[in-house]
């Protein structure tokens, strides 16, 4: 029947319920002069459903899963990082120039070229590809123009140009003006000029001036001849391609309208269905485009109107193949790559058809030619000899990275929808394979191209032919003149192969062979490349339990990494590898025992190290307690490193909170078993080390309280230790911000002190708690209103605790309830809260009036109040006088309410932002009334269960019932049951008709 002390804490969690039920015993005879009498106790015991207070120090079980969110965020981060790396390991030039984000909203061409199933997807893909192109290459603000781009210079802006000179310019040989000084305009100007040109083309078209449209489009296409703008070229391409797409769509639409079949809107037509007139117009367009002198604009313009071939011939594959061949005439590698990209893009506008070349619906022969031609271009670039220019290799590198998107897009188109059977043919055609049987037996390949093929191949194919692919990577010989370059490219390919293989880790022997090869190759690499490549293979190594390899790798890494400053790239590599290890092994001790793991960790620094540390902490605390002293020391150091790191940042970011939470959790999970002193020392150490984490300090207090409770249960010998724990808690609590938090912790500590029989400590702590309550003063009323449930439950808890605290005659036996009472009157709390606190004090007094208290302190040396004071008339007197004043206060509060309700009615139209009114402003009038009724009933119930209903109490009850009646409907169930309780408890003599309804 007597609740264990630990259960008391649960009251604080059973927030918002009105009844703190304490058992009552039959009371002795009362003084005749007493106006109020405590009610005799009933034998029944009522309690609310309880929930565990796991964190409470008095809880007997070991503290278990504190619901801490797993390190999801960190994991995600790591994954993201991996993903990024997967797509672009080295390839994104991390330049500090601003990315060329051009507003391309109005540049989206409305695609009306076709209405096929995949058109939507293609358009979307193209749009995102365009965005990617524009953002990938950072562009400096200024662009110097060569003479070829003079279209872009507005008349009279950069050079005074008369109309005749403009005219001449169109005719003149491109060589002519190359001696002119280079003009420079801003990127923004360039872009807006292109927008203008687009508008002009549109305007001319709508004005039926198609010749002008065509001429301007040719000018736009001609801009693509100038590749001196380098990093701007992709953006330029996107803008120009948009203009040309638009022109192509307009021409298509015009001819489609001329062709009579268009009436039914179908897109499936043959050239034979098209009327002569439409054919004639179409042929004219091709003639006009064909007569453009320069090669590049001629190809682009024909590509723009490529879909129109369908009006003339049944299968426009011949023109497509021819255009691919014509592109060979563009010697500039950049211009030709993007031209091929445009071919791949425009070819998508053609319907699928079977050429018999491959046993599939789409002709991809032209794409294969594109790739093979590009292969030659790449080989040519990388084998070109060093000229006088020192940064030749650099410029080669950036040139190739500029060309990469083209090869990437073409590969995507090429391998899209290629059946498994045809892949073999494609690979043979690309020169990778010697035959269908030997898909990767070719002797030479260009690593950049190989990279993108490898990216597109199916996982199955990659894992089946891993050895062959490895051989190809090793043999890639495109950069025979540039060892560094070749090396970087090969490194990328090895890495990609690893990543692709990891997608589907097989158990075959091939994996062994591949790994042996790879490890042998990378053993000559520097740290950065070594990490990049092996990071990709780590999953395979771990999953196949190749411990020998793992050991060797870690050894090699520490060998490479020591005695050098580790660069950012390398840190990222280390981080990725260590995180992979951590997530693979479930047990932290296994990871720590790996050779070189800690060594490598020590070599790391900065955010990478923090991330690894966070993973370690997460792992350490995920599976319960941390008991091993070495591990604890290690984790403590890790936590310290983590803490130092974010202390520097000083930003209250989410990241820091995550770290704080992890450290706190670690401290919570540390368990030194029976070595209490050591644990306390650890806590002290933690307080010193992690002073800035509030959350942690709470945990420290909890832990020290738990420790004290544990020690107390162990016996008397630890009294000194318990005192130190309590002292530790007491000192720590004030540094925690938040009064409610402090309050809870004070109470908790007080309970522990009581458990240990340290009454004076408990008294002091309860005083501190009350002081805490008092300091609510300074806070705004609205804040108090928000926390009112918390305050209420704390005060209730305080009340239930003071049942056990022996009264101190020096400060007054009822010192605690009295302080609470005076506290209430000084606070601007809501009447509802006040009512409930008064009720709690009633219950407390009623409990204290009993001969045997329902529960008592466990410690034998702490005497119960019943033993100390029961029967002492001054004690009973004091109790009654307390209750009387409480009753008065209670009645006052409830009586005050109507005036406030009325006042509220009056002022609802006036916007007074007093905090007090704000707290009730969101209640409507009816709600207010109902609340008041409930409040009265609550008070009435409490009075009825605590006191005998005599002539002193009855009027109060009647008054409360009246109030409730005026506020609630007559058949309110609470009202009815309260009345019936009252009736039951009425002394037989005093049955009053005023209460019976």
């Amino acid at each position, binding site marked *: 029947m007597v609740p264990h002390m630990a259960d008391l804490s649960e009251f604080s969690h059973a927030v918002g319920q009105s009844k703190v039920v304490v058992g009552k015993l039959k009371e002795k005879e009362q003084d005749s002069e007493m106006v109020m009498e405590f009610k005799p106790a009933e034998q029944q015991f009522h309690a609310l459903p309880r929930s565990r207070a796991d964190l409470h120090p008095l809880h007997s079980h070991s503290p278990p899963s504190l619901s801490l969110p797993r390190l999801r965020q960190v994991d995600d981060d790591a994954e993201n990082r991996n993903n990024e790396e997967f797509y672009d390991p080295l390839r994104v030039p991390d330049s500090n120039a601003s990315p060329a984000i051009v507003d391309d909203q109005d540049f989206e061409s409305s695609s009306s070229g076709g209405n096929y199933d995949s058109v939507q997807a293609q358009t979307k893909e193209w749009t995102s590809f365009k965005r990617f192109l524009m953002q990938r290459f950072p562009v400096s603000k200024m662009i110097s123009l060569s003479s070829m781009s003079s279209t872009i210079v507005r008349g009279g802006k950069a050079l005074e140009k008369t109309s005749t000179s403009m005219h001449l310019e169109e005719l003149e040989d491109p060589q002519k003006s190359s001696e002119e000084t280079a003009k420079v305009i801003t990127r923004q100007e360039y872009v807006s000029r292109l927008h203008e040109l687009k508008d002009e083309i549109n305007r001319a078209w709508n004005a039926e001036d198609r010749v002008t449209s065509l001429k301007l489009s040719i000018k736009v296409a001609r801009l693509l001849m100038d590749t001196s703008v380098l990093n701007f070229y992709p953006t330029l391409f996107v803008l120009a391609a948009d203009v040309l797409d638009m022109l192509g769509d307009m021409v298509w639409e015009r001819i489609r309208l001329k062709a009579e079949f268009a009436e039914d809107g179908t897109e499936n037509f043959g050239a034979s269905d098209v009327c002569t007139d439409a054919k*004639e117009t179409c042929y004219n367009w091709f003639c006009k485009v*064909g007569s453009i002198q320069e090669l590049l604009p001629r190809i682009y313009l024909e590509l723009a109107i490529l879909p129109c071939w369908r009006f003339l011939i049944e299968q426009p594959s011949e023109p497509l193949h021819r255009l691919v061949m014509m592109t*060979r*005439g563009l010697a*500039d590698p950049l211009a030709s790559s993007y031209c091929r990209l445009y071919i791949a893009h425009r070819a998508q506008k053609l319907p699928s058809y079977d050429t018999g070349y491959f046993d599939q619906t789409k002709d991809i022969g032209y794409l294969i030619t594109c790739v093979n031609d590009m292969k030659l271009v790449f080989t040519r670039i990388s084998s070109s000899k060093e000229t006088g220019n020192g940064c030749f290799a650099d410029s080669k590198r950036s040139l190739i990275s500029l060309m990469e998107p083209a090869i990437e897009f073409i590969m995507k188109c090429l391998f899209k929808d290629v059946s498994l059977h045809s892949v073999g043919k494609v690979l043979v055609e690309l020169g990778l394979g010697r035959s269908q049987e030997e898909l990767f037996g070719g002797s030479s390949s260009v690593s950049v191209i190989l990279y993108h093929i490898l990216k597109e191949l199916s996982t199955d194919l990659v894992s089946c032919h891993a050895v062959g692919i490895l051989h190809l990577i090793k043999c890639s010989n495109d950069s025979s003149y540039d060892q560094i370059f070749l090396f970087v490219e090969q490194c990328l390919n090895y890495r990609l192969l690893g990543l692709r293989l990891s997608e589907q880790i097989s158990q075959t022997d091939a994996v062994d062979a591949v790994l042996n090869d790879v490890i042998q190759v990378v053993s000559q690499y520097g740290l950065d490349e070594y990490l990049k490549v092996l990071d990709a293979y780590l999953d395979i190594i771990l999953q196949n339990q190749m411990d020998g390899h793992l050991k060797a790798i870690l050894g090699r890494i520490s060998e490479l990494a020591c005695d050098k400053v580790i660069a950012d790239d390398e840190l990222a590599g280390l981080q990725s590898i260590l995180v992979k290890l951590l997530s693979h092994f479930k047990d932290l001790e296994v990871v720590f025992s790996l050779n070189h793991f800690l060594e490598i960790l020590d070599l790391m620094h900065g955010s990478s190290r923090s991330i690894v540390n966070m993973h370690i902490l997460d792992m350490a605390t995920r599976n319960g307690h941390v008991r091993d002293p070495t591990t604890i020391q290690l984790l403590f150091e890790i936590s310290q490193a983590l803490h130092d790191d974010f202390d520097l940042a000083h930003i209250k970011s989410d990241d820091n909170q995550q770290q704080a939470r992890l450290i706190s959790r670690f401290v919570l999970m540390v368990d030194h078993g029976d070595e209490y002193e050591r644990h306390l020392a650890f806590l002290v150490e933690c307080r010193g080390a992690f002073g800035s984490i509030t959350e942690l300090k709470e945990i420290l207090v909890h832990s020290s309280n738990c420790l004290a409770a544990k020690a107390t249960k162990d016996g008397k010998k630890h009294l000194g230790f318990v005192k130190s724990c309590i002292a530790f808690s007491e000192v720590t609590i004030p540094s925690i911000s938040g009064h409610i938090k402090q309050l809870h912790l004070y109470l908790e500590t007080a309970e522990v002190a009581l458990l240990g029989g340290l009454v004076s400590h408990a008294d002091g702590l309860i005083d501190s708690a009350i002081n805490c309550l008092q300091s609510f003063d300074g806070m705004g009323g609205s804040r108090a209103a928000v926390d009112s449930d918390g305050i209420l439950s704390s005060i209730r808890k305080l009340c239930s605790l003071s049942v056990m605290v022996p009264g101190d005659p020096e400060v007054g036996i009822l010192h605690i309830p009295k302080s609470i009472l005076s506290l209430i009157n000084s606070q601007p709390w809501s009447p509802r809260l006040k009512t409930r606190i008064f009720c709690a004090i009633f219950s407390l007094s009623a409990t204290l009036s009993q001969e045997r208290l329902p529960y008592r302190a466990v410690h034998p040396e702490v005497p119960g109040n019943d033993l100390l004071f029961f029967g002492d008339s001054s004690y009973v007197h004091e109790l009654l006088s307390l209750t009387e004043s409480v009753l008065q206060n209670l009645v006052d509060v409830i009586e005050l309410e109507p005036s406030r309700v009325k006042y509220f009615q009056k002022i609802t139209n006036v916007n007074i932002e007093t905090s007090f009114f704000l707290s009730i402003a969101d209640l409507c009038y009816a709600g207010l009334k109902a609340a008041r009724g409930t409040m009265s009933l609550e008070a009435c119930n409490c009075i009825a269960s605590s006191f005998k209903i005599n002539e002193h109490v009855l009027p109060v009850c009647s008054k409360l019932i009246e109030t409730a009646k005026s506020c609630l409907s007559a058949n309110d169930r609470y009202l009815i049951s309260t009345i019936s309780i009252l009736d039951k408890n009425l002394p037989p003599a005093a049955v009053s008709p005023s209460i019976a309804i």
Partner: protein
Amino acid sequence: MSTARVELKLSRPNRIYRPSETLQGRIVVKAASSFSHYGIRIGLTGSVNLQVRGGSAGVIESFYGVVKPIHILNNIIEIKPSGKIVSGTTEIPFSILLRNPKEDNLERFYETFHGTNISIQYLATVDIMRGYLHKSLSATVEFIVESDKADLLDEPISPEMVIFYITQDTQRHPILPELKSGGFRITGRIATVCSILEPLSGELTVEASAIPIYSIDIHLLRVESVLLGEKIVTETSLIQTTQIADGDVCRNMTLPIYVVLPRLLTCPTVFAGPFSIEFKVAIVINFQSELSRLYPKSDPKTPRLWTAMETLPLDLARPR
């Protein structure tokens, strides 16, 4: 006087007719008020206009001027006798057989061609006679004549390809010493007989070149010859340049030659008594050279120190 306008509209949007066919169309008269006329006539004319200018070839010093044109067609047909045109739009259809079978003495119907010295043109003119007080209303359109199928050769045009190679030794003009010493070799094949409806096709490969290539262009040339007294005056002019390589292209990569023949500016090769129209194709390789900047506006026909070229005859024919 009220305004009235007349227009000639031909039945075919491309205005191409063959001599054995009828020229069909409508005479469209838009009149603000009705008026009377003395007859509506359509006149068809076709002629070869020849002129000789002070030739660049320097063959002719003193001759300059127009040689008497050759009339192919001169036919006036009355579509309507005198009458009245009501106000508003009036459409009068007509249909005229181009070659009058009775008049066999006429010249051959050469195909329409617009060149520098020779121009073969066919015109249709409508005249609405309105008496002496008013100017007659008239309008003219050009129509294009293509040879009758019956007049064309029976056998299909064989795509005759000629293999060419261009090296430092095949050049008939002086070239830069470094070109001479470094050497180059460009080979390929190109059609020398070509249907006028098809593009000129072929292929070209740069096998070697010590000096980087600046560009490779295909020049389409016309050769117009006019008989002037005893002499034949010939002038070669450039019709169209088509670039097939821009920059120093990869060696041993086959580049396609694909030249769309411009309409009107080309016609089937003609050898008539008083004149002839022939075509040539020139493959011109420009090498990168500082010198080229000094002569920015060179005549593409003139061989330069930094160019190599090969000129081949081109026989254009209309397929059946």
